[in-house]
């Protein structure tokens, strides 16, 4: 159905795709896999005419094509459903489905009756039933996705791309989605399916193509793969090489952070734990279990209603971020761009933000000293940036994260809380980040790692706390640290809703 040969796409300073070839057939579900930054979205956008490649050719439906615009690709039958749904919440299901080309009456006005009938018909092709007069904002996310897919069916769609469709829906809804998508495949539509979740790939895909760092790794039939081989393809190395060797904290290590009966409504209901100097402690759980909120409540950026926190032997019960920092507690937040970096300031200012008093003399900020300190961090963490005076917003996730490491390791030497430390970071940088975390622990810093990526928790931590609905439901150590045990604690009493 579609064939791309030797596609190269260059963005200022980065080769996003390097001679990538890709081919997908009618009537198959073809998974496109790769880490963040592997080039999946760029490839999709190239297929859809949103990007024009520097090199390479596109064949679609038997002809060579050079899309001049996304519209041209769409008219030819390529439809993409992005992660953020492109729906109008205040319009009805039928209006959304026919937003581009509503059926008209003889007088040129919109023919609502026909539109609603055809909307119902289109949805039934998916095996789905919705009231065409319902407002989209009143639908569940899964139903909204169906509306989005129905939009694709209005035109003569030959190629349907789904970009991480299950990122926003739950397990049962995902199964429904898979069922609908398989129906379309059986009708002969070519479906390209992008996802991180390997289980899904095995549940739905017929073939898999893996990209890594903008390069084509390979295409396999799903039957010829198992999980480990797929991971090895994505990561480009075996799992054992990713994580540094685990090391338990010294047996006589003192707790640097003690939390007792912490409550911070609505998400944190009852949390107690100790973190020891030199320990890498994991905090796992499903999204929404209240893990980040625990961190915020400890750090003082979210009010606590109850509980006692002891930091390095001293009570820390009416906290603010300023006081937390002054006492050596740092917090690398999950949302790097919103809550971490200051995108409009340069790299040096980002590094010194929590420790500005150190750089202030009687005559004001000592910019030279600040720049020097930032240059030290660039060297220490091997940050790929031209210099301390450059902006941070264009850097890769890994380099941005390293800047935050520079900031917080300067400021805080007792406890560092990492919330999703490797989100949006490519594999190479992940390995470096794990090494940095390990090294910090070796230097005696107590480290709390919050992560949704189970392999990360399993590979990195020497002890793991599992949270569910605001409460710690389990603690696993040693050989017990594996994905199954953690998931069991994370979903313990709510089997119906999750997993």
């Amino acid at each position, binding site marked *: 159905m579609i064939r791309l040969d030797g596609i190269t796409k260059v963005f200022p300073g980065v080769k996003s795709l390097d001679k990538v070839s890709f081919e997908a057939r009618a009537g198959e579900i073809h998974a496109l896999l790769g880490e963040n930054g592997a080039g999946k979205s760029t490839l999709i956008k190239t297929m859809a005419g949103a990007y024009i490649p520097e090199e390479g050719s596109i064949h679609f439906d038997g002809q060579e094509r050079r899309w001049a615009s996304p519209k041209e690709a769409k008219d030819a039958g390529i439809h993409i459903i992005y992660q953020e749904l492109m729906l109008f919440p205040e319009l009805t299901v039928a209006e959304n489905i026919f937003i581009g080309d509503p059926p008209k009456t003889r007088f040129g006005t919109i023919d609502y009756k026909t539109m609603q009938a055809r909307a119902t018909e289109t949805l039934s092709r998916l095996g789905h039933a919705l009231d065409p007069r319902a407002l989209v904002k009143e639908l569940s996310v899964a139903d909204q996705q169906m509306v989005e897919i129905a939009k694709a069916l209005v035109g003569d769609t030959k190629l349907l791309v789904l970009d991480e469709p299950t990122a926003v829906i739950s397990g049962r809804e995902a199964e429904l989605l898979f069922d609908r998508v398989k129906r379309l495949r059986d009708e002969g539509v070519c479906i390209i399916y992008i996802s991180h979740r390997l289980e899904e790939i095995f549940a739905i895909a017929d073939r898999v193509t893996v990209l890594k760092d903008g390069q084509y790794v390979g295409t396999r039939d799903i039957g010829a793969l198992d999980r480990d081989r797929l991971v090895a393809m994505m990561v480009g190395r075996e799992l054992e090489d990713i994580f540094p060797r685990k090391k338990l904290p010294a047996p006589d290590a003192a707790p640097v952070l003690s939390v007792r009966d912490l409550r911070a409504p609505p998400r944190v209901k009852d949390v107690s734990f100790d973190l020891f100097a030199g320990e890498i402690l994991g905090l796992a759980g499903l999204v929404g279990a209240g893990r980040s909120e625990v961190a915020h409540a400890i*750090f003082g*950026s979210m009010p606590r209603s109850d509980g006692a926190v002891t930091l390095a032997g001293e009570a820390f019960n009416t906290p*603010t*971020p*300023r006081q*937390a*920092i*002054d006492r050596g507690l740092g*917090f690398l*937040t999950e949302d790097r761009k*919103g*809550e*971490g*970096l*200051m*995108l*409009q*300031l340069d790299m040096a*200012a980002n590094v010194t*933000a*929590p420790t*500005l*008093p150190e750089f*202030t003399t009687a*005559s*004001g*900020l000592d*910019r*030279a*000293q600040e*720049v*020097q300190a930032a*240059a030290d961090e660039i060297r220490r963490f091997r940050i790929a940036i*031209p*210099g301390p*005076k450059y*902006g941070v917003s264009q850097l890769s996730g890994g380099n941005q994260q390293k800047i935050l490491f520079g*900031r917080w390791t300067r400021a805080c030497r007792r406890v560092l809380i990492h919330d999703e430390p490797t989100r949006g970071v490519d594999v190479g940088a992940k390995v470096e980040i794990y090494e940095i975390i390990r090294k910090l622990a070796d230097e005696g810093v107590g480290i709390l790692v919050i992560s949704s990526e189970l392999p990360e928790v399993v590979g990195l931590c020497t002890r793991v706390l599992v949270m569910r609905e605001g409460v710690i439901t389990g603690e696993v150590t040693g050989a017990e640290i594996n994905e199954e045990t953690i998931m069991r604690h994370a979903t313990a009493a709510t089997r119906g809703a999750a997993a």
Partner: protein
Amino acid sequence: MALTDTNRPARRWRLDPSLIIVVLLLAAVVIAGFALSDRFGTTRNFMNVLEQASALGFASLGQALVVLVGGIDLSIGAVVTASTVLMAGVVETNPALMIPMIFGTLLFGAAIGFMNGYVTLRTGVHPLIVTLGTASILQGAVLIYTLQPTGGVPFWFEEFAYGRIGGVVPISGVVMLLCFALVWAFLKYSQTGRAIYAVGGSPEAARLTGIRASRITLLAYSASGFFAALAGAYYVSRTGVGDPRVGDPMTLASITPVILGGLILGGGKGNILGVLLGVFLISLLSNLLNYMNVSTFIQWVIQGLIIIFAVSIYVHKGKKL
């Protein structure tokens, strides 16, 4: 400073790229002025423009600080007006209070600004609405008090507007330049100045690095009120009375140089010197057009065109970055 910057050969002076547009526009106006009018390019004229620009300068400086922390102040015009009426009204009957009232008026302005900031932070209502409300309250109160220009100040106070150092350089203009210089240094070399940029660009990130974001916001709004009151003091000095309508055009006028100077509405980015250049640009342009007998209304049209032109270039450049 240049010594430690090891990455590249030291260059003594480099034009901040965000200032290029306003500098070019300013140069265009000056060149056109020399070409089109023989009265434009004289020291005397430039000094007059400097004097007349000071009210706009004060108001824009305050607006710029609020814009940098991610807000906007629509009460500037009303604060200007209220300050003139307050000052001239009180001092008329008690000329001895002139000097205390200079401080009193500035304090009044700062207090109004502080309230704006406080209400914005406390309620979470958008500053556009809060300051619009403040403007309406102040303007209403002033008009209840008087419909006509009122009050008076001792003769010597006119020196602030009309006085010339060495018979040449206007005092008010010098005060304005000093204010800009101080704020510039403050933004560049103080922790609090850095915090203003941080809070404006990424309030949540700033808070999580231990910056007390609320204090920074309060400071910026207070400064805005303070400088609006200073603009008010200038008008009293210039006209000798408190005028219940003098500040009307000031609110929107104060935003123009901020935009021309390349500050981003939304906060966190921009050079305060751009705002000063924007003030000069607007003042010189209207000065030149006056000499050319262009009507005020056509001046508005021209100003509007320049604003849209400048901003479209900023946006274009911003996209490329």
